[in-house]
């Protein structure tokens, strides 16, 4: 058989392009173009109107010395590193509990735990603004009724971040439980049966069978949580406005403020690129570490 020329191949497979064109068109206009344009913007100073001035890498240099950005980055990392273990820890325990063979009302539990994820972040934010209020909030009512002093959740610089973490944990445990539950159901039953014959306790089974078998799923949820953490915006925007005194300002909110309130479009573009780099590096290392240990 003769080798076909590329042109012939394209002609034969023309329907490939017909089918792909709609996706590709929107992908190019709304994904590829912005990525490139954003880089171009990040090398300029531009106030949203008039001529943009080329400034080279100045925007990027500035990020290194921008103390507000450093605050926002520290806040975001704090929220990431505190909420992720809480969310994944609760989710794994809950998934193991729900995976017991004889759990009654499993369907209802699953729906109940999943409900926070279904609701919009804005709605979650406004509800928790009321629940965590320092003078009339329900949470403070519970805290006072067990004999402690009220906590200024949303109005103190120490507690504002923690409040965001509480809300993140509340919202994301159920979602991760569902993923982990699916993972647990894939672990072969005989592993547990063999352990039972050898007299393994519940805790031993958890640490020697469940955790190692669940490693890929835990890694997957960890990466999702990491990417999600660096996108935190709505919760602080609604509940604290990033305050008090920038104590709950997230990277994305700083990006939003720079771009859409101060109209420093070039600087905000540079921030976008830095944010992307952070997410990329963080998830790259997690995948590396995760698969490296498994020897793949």
């Amino acid at each position: 058989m003769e080798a076909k020329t590329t042109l012939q191949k394209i002609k034969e497979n023309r329907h490939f392009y017909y089918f792909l064109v709609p996706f590709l068109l929107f992908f190019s206009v709304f994904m590829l173009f912005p990525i490139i344009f954003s880089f171009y913007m990040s090398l300029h100073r531009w106030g949203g109107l008039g001529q943009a001035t080329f400034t080279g890498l100045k925007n990027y240099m500035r990020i290194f010395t921008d103390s507000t950005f450093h605050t926002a980055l520290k806040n975001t990392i704090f929220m990431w590193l505190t909420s992720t273990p809480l969310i994944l820890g609760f989710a794994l325990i809950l998934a193991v509990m729900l995976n017991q063979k004889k759990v009654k009302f499993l369907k209802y539990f699953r729906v109940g735990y999943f409900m926070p994820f279904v609701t919009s972040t804005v709605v979650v934010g406004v509800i928790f603004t009321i629940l965590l209020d320092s003078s009339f909030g329900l949470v403070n009512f519970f805290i006072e009724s067990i004999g402690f002093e009220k906590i200024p959740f949303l109005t103190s610089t120490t507690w504002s971040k923690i409040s965001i973490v509480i809300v993140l944990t509340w919202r994301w445990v159920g979602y991760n439980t569902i993923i982990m539950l699916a993972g647990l159901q894939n672990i072969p039953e005989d592993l547990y049966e063999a352990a039972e014959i050898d007299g393994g306790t519940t805790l031993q089974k958890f640490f020697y069978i469940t955790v190692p078998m669940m490693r890929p799923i835990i890694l997957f949820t960890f990466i999702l949580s990491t990417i999600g953490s660096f996108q935190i915006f709505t919760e602080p925007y609604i509940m604290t406005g990033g305050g008090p005194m920038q104590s709950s300002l997230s990277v994305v909110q700083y990006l939003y403020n720079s771009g859409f309130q101060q109209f420093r479009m070039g600087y905000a573009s540079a921030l976008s690129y830095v944010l992307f780099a952070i997410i990329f590096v963080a998830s790259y290392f997690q995948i590396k570490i995760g698969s490296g240990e498994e020897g793949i």
Partner: protein
Amino acid sequence: MFEKENIKTYVFYILLITGVLISLLPFVWMITSSFKTLAEISEYPPSLLPDEVMWNNYVDVFDTVPYGRNLFNSFFVAIMYTFFGVFISATGGYALSKYREAPGRKLFFAVILSTMMIPMQVLAIPLYILMAQVGWINSYPALILPFAAQGFGLFMLKQYIDGIPDDLIEAARIDGCGEFRIFFQIILPVIKPAVAALGTIYFMNNYNLFFWPLIVTNKSIMYTVPVAIAQLQGQQFGIPLHHIMAAATLSTVPLIIIFLYFQKYIISGITMGALKG
């Protein structure tokens, strides 16, 4: 008196039920607060049930903001986005899955996959400038189109289409079935479960989306529900908490009904990525 096994079972269920209560209490609080007066919401100690049921909150919220229009916007945008986004992912996924000989296939696939991790926030600035340039600020296309081509959706449907045997398509070709007919009459019906799963996820995500509509709308009649609620919350003086709670309840109830109805699909959609990836 109790046997050890029994106590264990009790503790087990008490823990599970406490967890569910923590998950659901904020919703209960939202609904009961939506029937309170403004003064009663900020009363201390707080009470669960209102003294008098204020149905008026549900009427007044439509007077303070164009909330009817906001609800329409949210539904309209989410439905259009879902149909459009799922459709182009299905055709694109089919192309990448079943035309393996097509030149450029690998390159296209690699480029699309490599952008899967890029969050919307990174694209917000250039997309906003683009929208402003073409005069799409405060328009439906701006709310619907920009995030319709999701690598995640294309990848999910491609994975599913990979499972369809090529013989099925070959047989149809031999019978003289055109390429487009193969897609619409053979592929689409087979991938229905994946389409439903992706569709419900797209709908929920878009209905709840805040960041993008906040950027691309600034007229209250073009707000989607999350932006409308955030604007109420953002008022400097006298935040109308009772109206906010009524608005929040109105926006959440339909979503909960949809979730209960499509539960199976949402859960399969979420776990599909985890188990294969």
